[in-house]
């Protein structure tokens, strides 16, 4: 087996099978030319390895943006929580639509409602005023009696 049959670069790069690797190592022990070639390759790889990785000027980050999304509705049906959320949203929308779709009260209905409220307020006020008016009438009667009594006492003296 001559030198050209030994894949020194593959050996350096770790691309050989275990059998091939052992054959190369055996050959390197016997051939000074191949040892020299292998040393050059090793120094080359070492020099390449000295090049540092560079830091990025800034990090890459993605935000939730519809223009980046490959599919829209498809994602909605891919998970149970999303489906649950969609159901809740549809229920909320139905309630809102029902509320908005109810007929608005007419002017006559509004007037009747106002009249009912007014009547209730008046009745409530009258009920509260009755005892007050009775007290006032009583006090007026008492004042009149006292006045007549004072006139009678004055005439006797």
């Amino acid at each position: 087996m001559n030198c050209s049959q030994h894949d020194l670069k593959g050996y350096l790069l770790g691309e050989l099978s275990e059998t091939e690797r052992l054959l190369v190592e055996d050959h390197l022990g016997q051939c000074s030319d191949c040892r020299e070639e292998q040393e050059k390759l090793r120094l080359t790889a070492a020099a390449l390895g000295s090049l540092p990785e560079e830091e990025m000027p800034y990090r890459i980050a993605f935000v939730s943006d519809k223009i980046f999304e490959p599919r829209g509705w498809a994602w909605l049906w891919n998970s149970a929580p999303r489906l649950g959320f969609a159901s809740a949203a549809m229920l909320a929308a139905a309630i809102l639509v029902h509320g908005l779709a109810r007929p608005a009260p007419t002017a006559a209905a509004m007037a009747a409602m106002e009249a009912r409220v007014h009547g209730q307020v008046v009745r409530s006020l009258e009920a509260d005023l009755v005892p007050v008016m009775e007290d006032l009438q009583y006090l007026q009667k008492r004042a009149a009696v006292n006045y007549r009594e004072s006139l009678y006492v004055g005439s006797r003296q």
Partner: protein
Amino acid sequence: MIFREVEDPDLIARTKRGKVEAYNILVSRWEKRIFNYLLRLVGNREDAMDLSQEVFLKAYQNLGKLQDVSRFSPWLFRIAHNEAFSHLRRKRPEVELGSGPAVELARPRLEPLELTLAVRRALGRLSDDQREAIVLKIYQGFKFEEMAEVLDCPVSTVKSRVYAALEVLKETLAPIDTRGAE
């Protein structure tokens, strides 16, 4: 409690379900490798950064097409390869990529270490195909089979590119004493 790092396939699955946060974790794992791969191909930090963003945007938009999630790494580098070579074609359309003379890489800032400069000059002497092969093999640690997947070419082509590049680099770099740099 045993902490288990979330694996890439899990993050890919979550991303496919619309979790952008999962994709951001994936990006944070791979962005530096992709950036350095692109930087060593195009030789300019701003271009490498712009291309990196393009790569991750395209990966995000096409993630649904990735059938075998265990092949995410070669798939991502394949996108980066396409972006890099489209960029190089736009920059110098008169040069036939992969066969023309190598162009010295432009460097935006000076490095203090002479060895670093020597390595960069040596890489700049390679053709684009050869330099990419070295970057994928030496700096990204891909096996020949994976490189063939990234580059969409036979393993024999990958091997010949790497070996030819090593021959060129050896002439420049083998005489250099690297003991101080390791």
